């Protein structure tokens, strides 16, 4: 286990940048958005939250210890322009790949955590994302710890070809191993959770929750519109749609998540 404490948080709270709300498109300061937990103070819309801000929101202070933070993607199948895309994603996100993993406590309960990062190629899942999450579930199984995961993903990372599709099976297998040993897994789907992540570990939690309004689905909405010729409503594939169709346990507002998760961890504590 790494001795590193929180990697230095990107200075969102001291940011002087102006950003646009992802929902109402109004301009506001990044600092103001961060102070409100990335919920727009104008329209109440949920903006995507950086992985390390989520960790700060969820974990008891100074308890997060990161695992496998140094692992980086390689261009394993020599896909054109992938090296450049990786470099750009690192610069944009401040992360080495699309997921942050580690151990922490939430409301006093020990837990293994993974949080995906939307700023890294829209949380696409390649070998690093898959392998880090699989390793986390194995670690959790070995130490009889629960896993809490936050998903955000456009799906499998096509620049890694079949190696990325493979991660769906790999992680699902690791979740199964963890589950067979009687361990608890809670997953929270955030906007957007789609494709190969939906078709694997996002839908395998003992408890599956989502953030209000989050897009959660398998096939892309535009692709379905093209194939069927039907114009789909904004509510299609929303968290509310998934709750209504029976695929979510609940929708939990961001500010209530820490308490909700802490309570369920306490109920499942071994």
């Amino acid at each position, binding site marked *: 286990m790494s001795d590193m404490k929180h990697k230095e948080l990107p200075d969102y709270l001291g940011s002087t940048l102006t950003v646009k709300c992802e929902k109402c498109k109004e301009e506001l300061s990044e600092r103001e958005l961060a102070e409100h937990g990335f919920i727009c103070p104008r329209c109440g819309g949920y903006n995507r939250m950086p992985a390390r801000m989520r960790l700060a929101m969820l974990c008891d202070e100074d308890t997060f210890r990161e695992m496998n933070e140094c692992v980086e993607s390689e261009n394993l199948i020599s896909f054109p322009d992938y090296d450049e895309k990786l470099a750009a994603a690192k610069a944009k996100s401040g992360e080495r790949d699309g997921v942050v993993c580690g151990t922490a406590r939430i409301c006093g309960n020990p837990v293994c955590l993974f949080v995906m990062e939307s700023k890294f190629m829209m949380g696409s899942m390649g070998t690093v994302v898959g392998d880090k999450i699989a*390793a986390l579930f194995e670690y959790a199984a070995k130490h009889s710890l629960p896993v809490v995961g936050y998903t955000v993903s456009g799906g499998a990372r096509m620049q890694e*070809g*079949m*190696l990325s599709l493979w991660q769906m099976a790999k992680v699902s297998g690791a979740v199964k191993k963890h589950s067979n040993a009687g361990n608890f897994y809670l997953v929270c789907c955030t906007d957007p959770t789609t494709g190969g992540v939906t*078709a694997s*570990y996002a839908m395998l939690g003992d408890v599956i929750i989502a953030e209000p309004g989050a897009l959660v*689905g398998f*096939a892309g909405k535009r692709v379905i519109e093209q*194939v*069927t010729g039907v114009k789909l409503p904004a509510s299609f594939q929303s968290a509310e749609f998934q709750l209504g169709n029976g695929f979510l346990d609940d929708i939990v507002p961001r500010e209530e998540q820490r308490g909700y998760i802490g309570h369920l961890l306490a109920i499942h504590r071994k």
Partner: protein
Amino acid sequence: MNAYEKVKCTREAGRATAKDYIDAMFDGFVEFHGDRRFGDDPALIGGVATLDGKPVTVLGIEKGRDVSEHVARNFGCVSPEGYRKALRLMKQAEKFSRPVVCIVDTQGANCGIGAEERGEGAAIAENLYEMMDLHTPVLTLMVGEGSSGGALALAVADEIWMLENAYFTVVSPEACASILYKDSARAPEAAEHLKLAAQDLIEMGIIERVIAEPRDFTDPAQCKAYMEKLRDEVAGKLHALRGKKMNTLLSDRYEKYRKIGRCAPEGAMPAPKKH
């Protein structure tokens, strides 16, 4: 043939589809319908048969051989109830200790409104999860198209064999080209880069065997000889897999998926010793 020529070749009429394999390789096939939850998916054929005198469960993604069959089978695009039917029959195979043979030929899971409403993602996820721990041998034959999670949902197996011109990919070359280049006409380029051909995948360790195809699937004599040879090889492999201790079978299957793209050392279980 280059990668995209192979992709196109898997879409040609006259090529053997799942049903042809079931008819030619297995005896006494009895088809079972329905997922006992919602409905019956005609894109997924499942049932029991014997292979070389021994019981097996057979699952096949069938896209049909002509236009009316394509439509009736939804072009081999499986819906949630198809994956759930497959899982129901796999659990039945586990109960009766018979191996499972999956025949995969799909351009992808059903992309539609009802499929989303009934949890296409959840259905695929559940198959991956349960197949990794299915207490009976599983052999997957990739006989044509193999696109995305919809193909993987029947490809968590002890071994995956692929026809020499079949493809298995994270995303169809057309979709890849339209995302990357905003131009689906550049699919041939994308197909090359995706490394979706059998020869690429055996080098990566994704598949175990490349199967030589008959030069002409529509020639009855060639096709018969091909099917008989394949039947014998599948029977031989199932016999070998049945001979494995269950714990070994399952840990080997897990490790086959676990070891590819392994890069995160911390917390991971060490790779098991060779048996």
